[in-house]
């Protein structure tokens, strides 16, 4: 770093992705400028083989070390989920992202490797997890002249109500006919554009060439951070292919790029995030920011991924933070006797309604009952295993649930301090709704077959305690002289 002049910028992390062997970060500065910085990244994975002392293990480790694309290997002791037993596994560092799949496929041909870890996460996830960096957060960065990040400090804007000042552009167009193939048919006769803060939408009209050129000119002039449209990826792809068809090199990103068959369109909108209109309208920018902060993934993915995948991402982050390797997605163990299965999985509880017209009826509703049960009873994959880990230590799921629950309740109650209809009210509401969506799914996801940590006992235990709570609440009401006319405990399937 000798002689390198350092620059500083304070701003919000707009987007993160991998480019070559580095992470590319787009930062929106407080002054409203956008700049691209890069950060180092080392691709790696873990493999389980014989122990370090064993002959087979040592031989295999030497063999892996000798692979031309493996830079180094290290033995590390890790607690392996779900049993959390300590085991020595081999940490394999790969020379570049480009060679990652090749190394993995070569390793799979070797006899003696019984397990693989950290192999089905995106590299961008691994980078963000390692950095502990939730995209859209505010940070202070110093960087060299060539854009390499030398230091990154998060500024703790977690309590902010207002979302980052990202500039939004909503666009839509209607092809004259449905596209028959890429670029074929579906001529574009006009594009409507709506910018945040401007009243009416603007309509770009004319010949297809004029419309596309005007759209590019508009984008370059207004320089938006977020491009929003219905089926946005389809729309952008269609736009790029139509432009190519008429011989126009359309530039939608902040760095130049050219459309090539077989290559993803992601490199053609570098520096601008694509968001689906429906998701944007449902969650709002503040809601998408909450999803980014929860799952430690860039906003484009946060808006696109379903709740289960976001929870998976956060679980992986928490697991890595606790020094656990990430098992592959495929593991799921459901081995029980039929008696255990029947008695443990009783589902929800419905007390039959008393039919008729009732007067003076009050409704009791639990506030975030399932998340509270998870936190209070420390229900997690490792605490509910046949050989549970130390109960005094907060489990993986209670940890992330507690944090999310506190955050949701903070915004839910803060919302009431602002007048209804104000921007602040709306932002608080967007944030708490986005978090509620995730909290509702956390408990159901513990019993989902697609969950890599998968311990169905967690799901069953939460259901059991929830049923008990419902019965307790009903009995309190009855003892106080009330009549219970209906009670319901719905479960996630």
């Amino acid at each position, binding site marked *: 770093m000798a002689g390198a002049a350092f620059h500083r910028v304070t701003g919000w992390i707009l987007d993160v992705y991998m480019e070559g062997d580095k992470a590319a970060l787009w930062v929106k500065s407080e002054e409203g400028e956008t700049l691209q910085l890069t950060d180092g990244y080392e691709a790696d994975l873990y493999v389980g083989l014989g122990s370090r002392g064993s002959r087979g293990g040592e031989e295999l480790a030497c063999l892996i070390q000798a692979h031309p694309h493996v830079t180094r290997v290290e033995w590390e002791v890790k607690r392996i989920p779900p049993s959390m037993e300590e085991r020595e596994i081999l940490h394999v560092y790969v020379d570049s992202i480009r060679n990652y799949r090749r190394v993995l496929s070569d390793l799979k041909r070797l006899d003696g490797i019984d397990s693989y870890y950290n192999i089905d996460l995106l590299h961008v996830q691994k980078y963000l997890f390692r950095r502990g960096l939730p995209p859209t957060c505010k940070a202070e960065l110093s960087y060299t002249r060539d854009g390499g990040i030398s230091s990154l400090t998060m500024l703790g804007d977690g309590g902010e109500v207002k979302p980052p000042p990202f500039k939004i552009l909503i666009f839509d167009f209607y092809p004259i006919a449905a596209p028959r193939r890429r670029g074929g048919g579906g001529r574009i006769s006009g594009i409507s554009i709506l910018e945040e803060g401007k009243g009416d939408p603007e309509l770009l009209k004319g010949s297809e060439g004029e419309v596309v050129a005007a759209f590019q000119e508009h984008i370059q002039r207004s320089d938006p951070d977020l491009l929003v449209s219905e089926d946005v990826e389809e729309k952008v792809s269609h736009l790029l292919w139509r432009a190519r068809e008429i011989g126009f090199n359309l530039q939608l990103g902040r760095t130049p790029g050219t459309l090539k068959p077989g290559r993803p369109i992601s490199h053609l909108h570098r520096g601008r995030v694509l968001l689906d209109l429906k998701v944007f309208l449902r969650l709002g920018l503040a809601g998408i920011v909450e999803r980014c902060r929860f799952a430690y993934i860039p906003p484009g993915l946060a808006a696109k991924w379903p709740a289960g995948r976001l929870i998976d991402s956060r679980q992986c982050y928490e697991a890595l933070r606790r020094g656990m390797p990430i098992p592959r997605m495929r593991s799921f163990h459901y081995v029980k*006797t039929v008696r255990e299965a029947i008695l443990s999985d*009783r589902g929800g509880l419905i007390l039959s309604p008393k039919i008729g017209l009732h007067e003076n009826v009050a409704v009791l509703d639990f506030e975030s009952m399932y998340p509270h049960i998870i936190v209070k009873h420390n229900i997690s994959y490792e605490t509910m295993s046949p050989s549970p880990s130390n109960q005094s230590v907060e489990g993986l799921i209670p940890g992330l649930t507690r944090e999310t629950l506190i955050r949701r309740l903070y915004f839910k109650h803060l919302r009431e301090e602002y007048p209804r209809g104000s921007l602040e009210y709306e932002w608080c509401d967007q944030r708490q709704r986005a978090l509620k969506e995730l909290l509702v799914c956390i408990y159901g996801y513990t019993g989902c077959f697609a969950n890599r940590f998968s311990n169905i006992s967690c799901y069953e235990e939460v259901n059991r305690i929830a049923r008990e709570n419902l019965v307790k609440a009903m009995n309190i009401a009855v003892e106080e002289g009330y009549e219970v006319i209906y009670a319901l405990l719905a479960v996630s399937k």
Partner: protein
Amino acid sequence: MTTGDDGLDSLLGGGIEPGRFYLFYGDRGSGIDHLIHQIVVNGLLSPGGSGFKGKCVYVNCGNYRRGRMMLDTDLLCRLVKAAKLDLYEALDRIYIVCGFSEEQEEELPDEVENLVRGDRDVRLVVVHNIAGLFTADGGVYGRARGEKIMRLQGIVYRLWRVCAENNLALVASCRPAGDTALGEVKPEGGGYLGHKATAIIYVRRIGRRCSSAYLIKHPSLPSRGIVLKHGLGGDPLGRITPSFRILFQGEVDRLKRTYRDALMDIGCRRAFDSLVEAWGREQGAMGNSGVPTAMEAMLLTAAVDNRRIIEELLREIEDIRSRLDRVEERLREGVEG
């Protein structure tokens, strides 16, 4: 071991033998799923009762998001009771192993091997819908389909090896490939499954409660078909533990049809109706109870309701008795006065 159906047993030359692989396939509604439940229960019977008197591993391969193809616990409990086995003990002797995706199904042979090694009482492995996860995407052709079939072959081989090495009977079920209406009756999942099976039986429903079974392959018997006059039971499959409300409703409907309508005494019918009302009121408590079958939960609720009525009657009798005492007292005072 018997399959539970004399016709099928005779078709197989006596029933199911240890160390062999039996493949049953047929459409939904053919009774295959009922047969699988029956075979699981039969595995628990003593040899005198035509069983293995061992434990059973029930392997389920199905994605609950795509289709319902799972163990019906209520049916299983009914079959256990019909076989006069102790319910709790029998349910403890059946292991469930589930795979909900192709990748998870690939791990099942290892799970089965661990179970078999850890529990030497296991005599039977029953695989429900062995090829379903690999054939669910009917539109997959070419290389992708070839790869899937190869992976399925690996699973079949590993399961077969585990059972053969431990002298266990392996029973698997699957659906027919293609449209059975067009006469195609091969099992789905490619030829390897059929190749590895010792005996193959195709079951087809031909009437409301009547099925036909065809012996497609057997090491010593010629191919032939028979008609199973009573069919192989229904096809009431749901999730691993079906919702109590569904079980309850099914049980009440069944009782109304088969029991209530047969009651001669009008008073008994009214008593039955009042019990149904009590059960309906306390569905929540029944669903939350620790008994495994809907019928037992209903019996418990009926007993509780009867107790409630008895307590009410006792209170009324006590009340009447005290009033009577007071009247007697006053009468006595009047006479003496």
